[in-house]
């Protein structure tokens, strides 16, 4: 039972930031595609903007690993 709760906690730690990242990247991606179509020289900036929300899920992953290694 305890292990199951830890597994759920780890899954939530990755899953919720993943949803948030997906939402943010979808919004940024669609806006970015339009911007790059208009101004190709903004491609680099758009890659940066698109990549910024990924930090959430990466940190979520770290938390999940910590949970598993610490308690499981």
């Amino acid at each position, binding site marked *: 039972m305890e292990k199951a709760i830890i597994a759920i906690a780890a899954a939530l730690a990755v899953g919720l930031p993943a949803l948030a990242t997906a939402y943010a990247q979808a919004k940024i991606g669609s806006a970015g595609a339009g911007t790059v179509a208009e101004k190709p020289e903004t491609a*680099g900036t758009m*890659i940066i903007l698109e*990549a910024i929300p*990924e*930090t959430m899920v*990466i*940190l979520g*992953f*770290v938390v999940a*690993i910590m949970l598993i290694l610490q308690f499981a």
Partner: protein
Amino acid sequence: MIRSMMRLAVWGTASSKKAIIETLHDLGALHLDQPASVPRHFTAEADELRMLRGKLLGMLEILGWDEWEALSEEAISKTRTTLTLPLDEIVGEIDRNLDQFRERLSGFAKRKESLRDVLERIRNAHDTVRYFLPFIKEAEKEGKGLSFWWVDRKDVSKYVREIREALREDRTRETGFSHMSHTFRDERLLICVSVSEEELPVIEGIFQNNGAIRWRPPRECGDQDMSAALECIEEKLESLPAEIRSIDTELSETSVEWGPKLASLFILVDEELEEKLIAQRSDSAEEYFLLEGWIPADTLENATRTLKERFGASVFLYWRYPSTDEWHEVPTALSNPPTTRPYQLFISLLRPPSYNTFDPTSMVALFFPFFAGCMVGDAGYGSLFLALSLWIQRKGHSQTARDVGKILFGVSLWSILWGIAFGEFFGDIAQRLFNVHPLWVERSHAVLPVMVFSVSLGAAHVLLGLFVGFIRGVREKNNHLRNEKCGNILVLLALFALLAGTKGTFARVLFPAGGAMLFLGVVLLVAGGGIGGVIEGLGSVGNILSYVRIAAIGLSSAILAMVASKFVDILGVSVFGIFIALSIHVLNFVLALAGSGLHSARLHYVEFMGKFYEGNGRDYVPFSRRRRTTIWKKQS
């Protein structure tokens, strides 16, 4: 590195203006820098050239010619030598010839378009009547007349009833009325009626009076009986595509023959136009003119010698280094050795760095393949990357493609090395088959050490970025930048010292030293960037943690590769098992290729370059003979 630039001013006599501009065009090194206040002139001559250029491009589009990359210098030179008269004198002649040629091409294009329309109609007609073929043949055998009508589906029985009633009134003749109908996908219904020729007008009258629409064969096959029309339709279905193919062949042959010639002419006209515009924009008086711009210091000697040798006393040259106040105006030209040059691609996606700042290409060349290789960390995938990179380098048509191939080569080497360190070859295949053990750790089991290693890499990388930022602050004598970066470095070092001070034998020394550094660092951060500086300092910690993605992506790739092997365990060495395993490996390969590149690029753009890079520079655009289609197309 950023090339050192010089300000070059070229004074010349008005009589040699055209020749001097042509020489500068040939040299292709001077970034002309005309004052913004100089208006752009539109002379009739320039407009004629623009018109000619537009016509040439239009004809190339009609021809479907797009082999700009393959256009050789020889073809351009050959066209140049055929134009013996000055270009402005023969513009009219070229223009007239082009008009005739364009008419011929337009004729081809129109004919092809019209044949396509006819073919479309013939196909539709064939689709429509093929259902009625047996009925038509039967009716014609019996010598009856035929008539086709589009009607509403629900009205069919009404029409049939009316026709029967009308024919019943005329009992003097044998009518032999019969009909057939077919409903098409769009719910339209086509009814075909057959009746004796004498009664046909009566029936057609009934349809017309009720608002039905008559269907006829296309006019290309009209005015003949239905059987002959069908034969004609089938004949056209065979002959029209052949005619279209023949026009395509003719256009293709014309394109092969004339495409390079027209493209060369386009380039020459484009160059002539550019020279004219430069001549018009130059600061001119009656007897002299002045052109000014920026030239890389390493090409200055060649440029000045060439100009002096060709024009002697007709040209006066003056050059100097840019002053500090002018740094923001100087265009940025990057120059890197061939091994690191492909990595300029990453910098080209951003605005160029300001002149006299730092070109991060060499650092990107060092760290990008290292990080990407660490994420892939599989000798098997690395070998595939290696093969792919060699193929791209050999087959790549454009310079960008070849650069990508070279970058991939670096990534592949590091992937193989990291694969040996992690003992991975398409997952755990090498371990299973040859009992190969990792040189360092197995990623899928030792998660924490790899994560700690990734974060350590991040700390070193971010500190390096901050150090470059600090050096920039010192060079630019920017106290705010210098204090902020120095404070940031101290805060990070203090955090590491405090972290190390919580454990180990040096705790007593590290803890107070860390506290002191933290205090000094925060003071410098506030002095350098105020509250924003403190936030920046906290952001650096987040930046370092962001490098844990190297471990995270590597771990997911390693586990996915192992899952592929597990399928063979579960399903056995069967076709299905191997198919599933291969599919997962292909998926993993694509994810590794895209993921490692994107994430490694992001680590450089956001975490590393964010610490010192400011893309405030101006692109170096020398006045040169253009040979790249993208530039031509953009300006056309």
